[in-house]
Structures are given as structure tokens and as C-alpha cells.
């Protein structure tokens, strides 16, 4: 009954949310993340579309996506594949070009970001009229699952150093579960040149520099259920390099 009321409320709402899902070898996860997105958008009644940007996965992610499109409809699942791996920044640009929503949600397709938080992002955005909402693992009920002490220490340490050096006005800089106004994301993506973890950080730092308002919603981050995530020496070195670059240039 709560959702019935919700539906009525949201039908008057002209806002549309485009979820960008960049994928590479996610045939296991893609149907699950899509199912969860459909479930939570359905329950909350917001208008949405899911844009799958597959970078030529050899595992057949695209074929799975085509099946999902048949199941859920061409208006809900939009396929915008690219021939090969071309990086996250250009995936967003590619996705934005085809997005019909006035808000864009970016998230990982590997199930570490749970769609149940999206309605909270949307409410938070409406409440404060924010330009972007960032999911945070570091505040309130936010947290992680599947991290050992070493990983937690690196994460907290890197976050602390970043907070001290950049004072970015947001607690989770390297997370990539966010909601943007479409024009805000467009203007940020244009300006951001970094790769990997630093890309997400640069987006927040530039957002603050440009005077955009940032809201935060605590999220639980469940580390990759399938496949494995890595955090090696290379990632740490490139993170520090990126951090210092931002320190000197923003």
C-alpha cells in the first residue's frame, strides 16, 4: 500500500532517471543488477531507463543484455555498446549522449552498489535541490563488506590524507555510486582527465570548485560477489600521483 501511494505521487513527477551501466565481462552480474534496478524503481515509481554501455566484452555480456531488453522492454533497457574497452570517462560521455533523463545515475554493474539506495539518493536530491548526490561508505550507516584490515587501513588512510590536502566537502571521494543532474555531469566529465580511482575523486573536487552543491547518502558497499577486485601497489602509486596532481592544480 505504501508503494501504491508512492506511485501516485511519482506519476506527477516529470523527472526521469537514466542509469548508466558501463560493463566489461559482466554476464553473471548484469541480469542481477538489472533485476534489482527494475525492482526498486518499480516499487518507488520513479521514471527511469537503464543504459548498458558494453565495451565489447568477449564473454557475451551484450547477448545477455539483448535478452534482458526483450524481457523488460526497449524503453527501459537501452543498449549502447562500443567496439572495445575505451575507459570510464568516455563511457559516461557516450551514455549521456543517449540518455533521455534529466538526471543520471552512475554505478558499478558488479553488485557492489545496491540499487536499493537509489530512491534515497532521489529523495535526498529533491529535499535539498542538490546538483549531485554521492553515496558514502564513510558516514552514518555506510560501510563495506568483504574488506580485510589491510584494505580498510589503506582506504581510511588514503581518505584521511585526501581530506587534509584537498578539503573537498564530501566524505567519499573514490566511490562511484552517484546521482548527477545531467548538465552537471556533462560539464564535469568534459573537465576531468584522470583515470581509475582518481577520476571519481576529480569529479567531486571539480564539482566543488565549480560551486555545485553535493549531498551525501550512506551506502553499504558489498565487494564483488563474482570475480575479484584488486588493490595492489600500482593502484596505490597511481592514486597518490593523481592526488598530488589535484593538489597542485585545483
Amino acid at each position: 500500500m505504501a508503494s501504491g501511494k508512492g506511485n501516485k505521487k511519482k506519476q506527477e513527477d516529470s523527472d526521469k532517471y537514466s542509469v548508466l551501466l558501463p560493463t566489461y565481462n559482466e554476464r553473471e552480474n548484469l541480469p542481477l543488477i538489472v533485476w534489482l534496478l527494475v525492482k526498486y524503481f518499480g516499487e518507488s515509481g520513479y521514471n527511469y531507463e537503464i543504459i548498458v554501455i558494453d565495451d565489447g566484452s568477449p564473454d557475451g555480456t551484450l547477448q545477455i543484455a539483448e535478452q534482458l531488453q526483450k524481457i523488460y522492454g526497449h524503453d527501459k533497457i537501452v543498449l549502447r555498446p562500443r567496439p572495445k574497452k575505451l575507459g570510464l570517462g568516455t563511457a559516461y560521455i557516450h551514455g549521456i549522449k543517449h540518455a533521455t533523463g534529466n538526471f543520471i545515475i552512475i554505478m558499478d554493474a558488479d553488485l557492489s552498489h545496491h540499487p536499493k539506495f537509489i530512491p534515497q539518493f532521489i529523495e535526498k536530491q529533491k529535499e535539498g535541490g542538490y546538483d549531485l548526490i554521492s553515496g558514502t561508505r564513510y558516514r552514518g550507516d555506510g560501510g563495506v563488506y568483504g574488506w580485510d584490515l589491510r584494505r580498510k587501513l589503506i582506504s581510511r588512510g588514503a581518505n584521511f590524507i585526501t581530506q587534509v590536502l584537498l578539503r573537498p566537502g564530501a566524505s567519499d571521494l573514490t566511490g562511484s555510486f552517484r546521482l548527477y543532474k545531467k548538465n552537471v555531469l556533462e560539464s564535469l566529465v568534459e573537465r576531468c582527465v584522470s583515470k581509475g580511482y582518481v577520476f571519481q575523486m576529480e569529479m567531486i573536487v571539480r564539482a566543488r570548485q565549480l560551486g555545485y552543491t553535493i549531498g551525501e547518502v550512506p551506502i553499504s558497499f558489498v565487494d564483488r560477489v563474482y570475480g575479484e577486485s584488486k588493490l595492489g601497489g600500482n593502484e596505490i602509486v597511481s592514486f597518490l600521483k593523481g592526488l598530488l596532481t589535484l593538489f597542485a592544480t585545483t
Partner: protein
Amino acid sequence: MTKLLEWLFAVSLVGVAWGLVTFDLLDFQFPAVYREVAWPMPVYLLVVFGCYSLATVGYRVATFNDCEEAARELQGQIQEAKEDLKKKGLKI
């Protein structure tokens, strides 16, 4: 102003204040006790900041939420999703 410049600016302000008191550069003739307090101040500040950093990071690592409940919920939903998708005709 970049963050780097902000930092350099703040550090040089503190440095100048420290130099003024410690070496009495402008010949204010401060009492000797001022100088005694001032000259080791940069080291104290560094030590205090180091302790604060270690304590903060340590506390945050110790209180980093482990989302066991979220992981369990997700596992349950994955099963549910797989069954439902199979019913809807998804072939993996």
C-alpha cells in the same frame, strides 16, 4: 588559488610568526620565556598532528562498519532474481 598555494601561504604565515618570536626579528624584546616556548613549537605541532592523524585513522578503521546484513540480503536477492529471470525466459 590552488590547494598547494593555500598550503604554502598558511605554512609561510606560521613560519614568519615563528621566526618573529623565536629570533625576535623585529626587535620587540620579548621576554625570554616567549622564545623558549616558541622555538620547539613546529616540532610540537608536527607531533600533535601526527598523533591526531594516527588516532583518527585508527578509530575510523576500528569503527568501519562491516555490512554483514547487507551482504546476506544481497545473496538472498540474487537467488530470488535468478529464479525470477529463469521464469521470464532468460537463458544464460
